[in-house]
């Protein structure tokens, strides 16, 4: 008994030191194989299906169209807006259905509106860019305009103002062409329901602002900047003189040359590169940017011009394509 008494405290002490296991939340062993099996069966049936949003129970096209206008702060004519959202593919599909059922309901697609919208987009963007970049040559302006009216950019804008679910098209999800076309049609519909000025502000706020934070020189590739620069300066009876103003690591892999361009002993620009020819070309590009008013430190483009702007061209930089 005494032996027992002697050892009881020891036994209790050892009990205290036993680590009590905290319950760990494990993912059961059956979860992964089951999910894999589900995935395999889904793939067997032809991959994951995305149901069109407009087939859901909670869908009201009229409410969606109303909210679309209100969201963008624009007053659309409701019939025109519906027409703008009706793609040609949808009309064809519906006509086929109607033929089967032997009824005929006329539907309008958005081709006309898209044409009108595209025309307005091109004209307005051209005029706007000429106003905000008065020294930039026409070829460059056309390059920026092409970027702004490209399918990808218009589709991006269209997607982010919420057209994706509302578009009536034969397929879902809709492709970029349909998205861009719908955006043009919306511009056309706005033109017909609210007039020039409202439409102009709409295009300015949603399309032209996409230039924010972008380098406008990227949309116009100049093949031979040196020839263009000398050509421009010849018209003003001035000649430009390139000078090598720095070289480092000559004859090594990391060679760096620096060329400065001078007009009447005053430096207009510098450029550097791994050979003298490249450095000269870079300097010419810098000089052209200075002439066109599109340097890296140019003032941000003004996105707040109201109405239809009237460009004042400083037209001494009209260049034929180089």
């Amino acid at each position, binding site marked *: 008994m005494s032996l027992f008494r002697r050892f009881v405290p020891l036994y209790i002490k050892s009990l205290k030191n036993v680590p009590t296991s905290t319950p760990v939340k494990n993912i059961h062993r059956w979860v992964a194989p089951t999910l894999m099996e589900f995935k395999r069966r889904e793939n067997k049936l032809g991959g994951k299906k995305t149901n069109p949003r407009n087939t859901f*129970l*909670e*869908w*009201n096209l009229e*409410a*969606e169209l*109303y*909210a679309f206008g*209100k*969201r*963008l*702060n624009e007053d659309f004519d409701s019939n025109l807006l519906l027409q703008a959202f009706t793609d040609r593919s949808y009309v064809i599909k519906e006509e086929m259905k109607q033929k089967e059922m032997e009824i005929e309901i006329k539907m309008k697609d958005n081709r006309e509106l898209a044409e009108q919208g595209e025309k307005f987009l091109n004209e307005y963007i051209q005029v706007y860019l000429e106003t905000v970049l008065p020294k930039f040559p026409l070829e460059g302006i056309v390059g920026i305009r092409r970027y702004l009216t490209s399918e990808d950019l218009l589709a*991006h*804008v269209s*997607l*982010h*103002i*919420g057209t*994706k679910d509302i578009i009536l098209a034969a397929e879902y999800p809709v492709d970029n062409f349909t998205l861009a076309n719908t955006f043009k049609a919306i511009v056309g519909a706005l033109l017909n329901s609210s007039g020039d000025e409202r439409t102009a502000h709409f295009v*300015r*706020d*949603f399309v*032209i*602002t*996409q230039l*924010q*934070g*972008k380098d406008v020189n990227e949309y116009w590739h100049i093949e031979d900047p040196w020839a263009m620069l000398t050509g421009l300066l010849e018209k003003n009876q001035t000649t430009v003189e390139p000078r090598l103003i*720095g070289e*480092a*690591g000559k004859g090594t892999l990391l060679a*760096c040359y*620096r060329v400065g361009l001078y007009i009447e002993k005053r430096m207009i620009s510098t450029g*550097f590169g791994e050979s003298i020819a490249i450095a000269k070309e870079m300097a010419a590009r810098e000089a052209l940017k200075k002439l066109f008013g599109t340097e*890296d430190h140019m003032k941000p483009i003004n*996105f707040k011009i109201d109405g239809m702007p009237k460009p004042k061209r400083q037209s001494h930089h009209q260049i034929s394509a180089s």
Partner: protein
Amino acid sequence: MSNKHLFLKPGFVRAPLQNGVGRYVQQLQRIVLKFCKTHGGSRGMRDYIEQDLVDFAKQNPGVVVYLKPRRHRSPVVVAEYLNGDRVWMSMHNKSQSEVTKWIEVLRTQQGDVSGTRLRKFQYTDHPSIQGPWSPFTFKNPELNTAKLPDPKFGANNRLPMSATEQLRIMFEKQRLNEKDLKTGE
């Protein structure tokens, strides 16, 4: 960062579609309130619908509001955003004021914010404003007029002092001190 973050969608702090440069567009495009008409878990949601929903719809004409009563299921709010995000939020047993606050959160955010892992807390399109570095970027302007070779610019002063040099200086100092002592006598 916890392990949970590994499965979140990574992203940067960005405004969608240059929002606000031209005009501001509210990013919530539609909201679906699913609730039960009899169950107690939907009590707060029902109160919200009775008292606040009409005002919400009036103040936000750009948001399409759908109500979806369903029997004996817990209440849920599904918000859909212009960038395609869909946020599902359970409102089970939440009071009316809680529902109001959560719907305010859903209304004002720009997408599935809590479901994205921010890769950085800032973002810029132009990480460098000075352009690429070249050996001439921080060149001393004095060098333009200097006539080379010039000991001022040609001196090799980049290396730390060598041990020999340190010894030489110590020796010089010692000699000077000895001279001082002699003159003291």
